[in-house]
């Protein structure tokens, strides 16, 4: 018991010290605070600028610029498979959240394959992958008429090499924003 109280007391002491340090740090930066205070007087508006800036920028940017920013991340698949891997689901959930935050955006899902299939069967496999992604997004509440799909088979590899690493990269679904 004595030990515990000792530890607690020591902990509180340390925390208070840390608190002091933070205050000291804040005190180091006042010049900027002062400048801000001079130009814009109200300090309350400050905490929310980031999301506002993002939304505005999407309206201002061209589709090409938006796509270059990579708001929607690609996902990857197993060899010869088109089911959504468990480790890829969080990426799709993030993508769905972004799409919900930007309800006017329409997307094209591209299905891609590694080189180890014929051109024809890879077109079929890429289409199944794109459809699996579309269905998953729909299950998360994204409207089907915001989503188009296309399969490029193995015609557009990310990595042109012929090894496991390249193949793993090339088995993927890409998201292209086609309307904002």
């Amino acid at each position, binding site marked *: 018991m004595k030990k515990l109280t000792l530890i607690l007391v020591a902990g509180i002491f340390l925390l208070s010290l840390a608190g002091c340090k933070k205050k000291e740090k804040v005190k180091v930066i006042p010049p900027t605070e002062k400048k801000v205070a001079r130009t814009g007087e109200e300090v309350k508006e400050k905490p929310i600028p980031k999301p506002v800036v993002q939304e505005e920028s999407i309206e201002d940017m061209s589709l090409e610029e938006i796509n270059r920013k990579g708001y929607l991340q690609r996902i990857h698949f197993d060899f010869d498979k088109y089911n959504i891997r468990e480790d890829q689901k969080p990426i799709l959930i993030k993508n769905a959240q972004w799409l919900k935050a930007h309800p006017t955006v329409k997307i094209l899902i591209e299905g891609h394959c590694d080189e*180890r299939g*014929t051109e*024809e*069967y890879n*077109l*079929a496999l890429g*289409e199944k992958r794109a459809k699996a992604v579309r269905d998953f997004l729909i299950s998360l509440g994204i409207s089907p008429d915001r989503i188009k799909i*296309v399969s490029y088979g193995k*015609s557009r590899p990310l990595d042109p090499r012929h090894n496991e690493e390249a193949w793993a990269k090339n088995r993927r679904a890409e998201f292209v924003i086609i309307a904002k």
Partner: protein
Amino acid sequence: MRKIFLLVFFTSQILAQQEITIRIKGGVPAIRIAIPPFQIRTYTPEAKAAAEEIEETFRADLAFSRVFSPLSRDLLSLVKDTNPERPDLKAWESVGASVVFLGKVEQRGEQLRFTGKLYDARTREFILGKSFYGKMKFRRLMAHRMGDELLKYFGQIPIFTSKIAFISDRDGNRELYIMDYDGMNQVRLTYTRGMEMLPAWSHNGEMIAYTSFRRGNPSLYIRYIYQGKDMLVAEGGSNITPDFSPDDKFLLYSSSLPGNYEIYIYDLRTGQRRRLTYSYGSDLSPKWSPDGEKILFSSDRSGSPQLYIMDKNGKNPRRITFQGSYNASPDWAPDGDRIIYVSRIMGRFNLYLLYLSTSQVIKLTSGMAMNENPCFSPDGRHIVFSSNRSGKYQIYIMDYDGKNLRQLTSRGNNLMPSWQKINYRR
């Protein structure tokens, strides 16, 4: 013994004085032909070069054919034949020639005349004479036409003027091209800046069906090459792997419109279409049998891609491949008995030949590269395919037994070849 057999065989056919069909199959020797140096009469350097190209092209065609076996230069040099109008056929027979071809190229102003005479070395008879006349830029065509006349005389399908359609990204994106069977005269046909793929040539040599991504999703078009016009055949979903019927009146293709790839038949005259397959798998690459009664296709309805044959109305599908877990991209030989296809083993593709009558399977390519989209020549003696064995994808041709491999393309990636079909029954 072999030579005697051939001579007897050959001359008896000549004496019969009728259209004959010699079926050259494995092991049967080709017709021994002597082609002494052409007589070339030109008065400009360009004409001389063109005349020499005619001779070279003609020799290369015959050497490629597997119907003819041209005598070597050493054997040719043994015969001191001085009179081109009356060849010493006895001397030609003595060095092993069955037939003798005497060629002559003359310049007439801006044009060239290519005359050829064919003689039977044993009976000492004149067999055939042909003459072609045209501008110098058609020099290769004149040579190919002469070769075709020889093939036709011996009852063979004329292949030297046949063409190969293919896809190339040499100018940045995948576009449709055509070339002569020997890789010359490569011409770009589409300028869509989208992506084109999987072309299929008609039997009349005037249409190419192909898939284009120019409007987003892969739609099927027919290009009328001599009018430069495109006709939209199928859109909605993905529409790929077309194949013209032997009479060019119908087009088979695969469409993913119903949810997965199913095979459709399209009537070129009425524009009507009908669905032929109803399976849970992807049914792809439909190919008409040479008699137009059956359809060969690939399907993964059993879990992995395998080859099937069904009636032309879509009924009675039966599986024909049982070796390997991934068999696709088939093509049916004009003889109706052989099928060439791609088989995947350990992630690599090689070409295999299946004999329907005996169920025998022969492996035609080997190595660690990809060998894809095989297609028979119109006479079934040669196979065109694409391979990345040299790094990028290039188009190759080889004989039905895997011999005489030749690379036809070199710039960019070149793939998905389709050799023009010729329906000689019409």
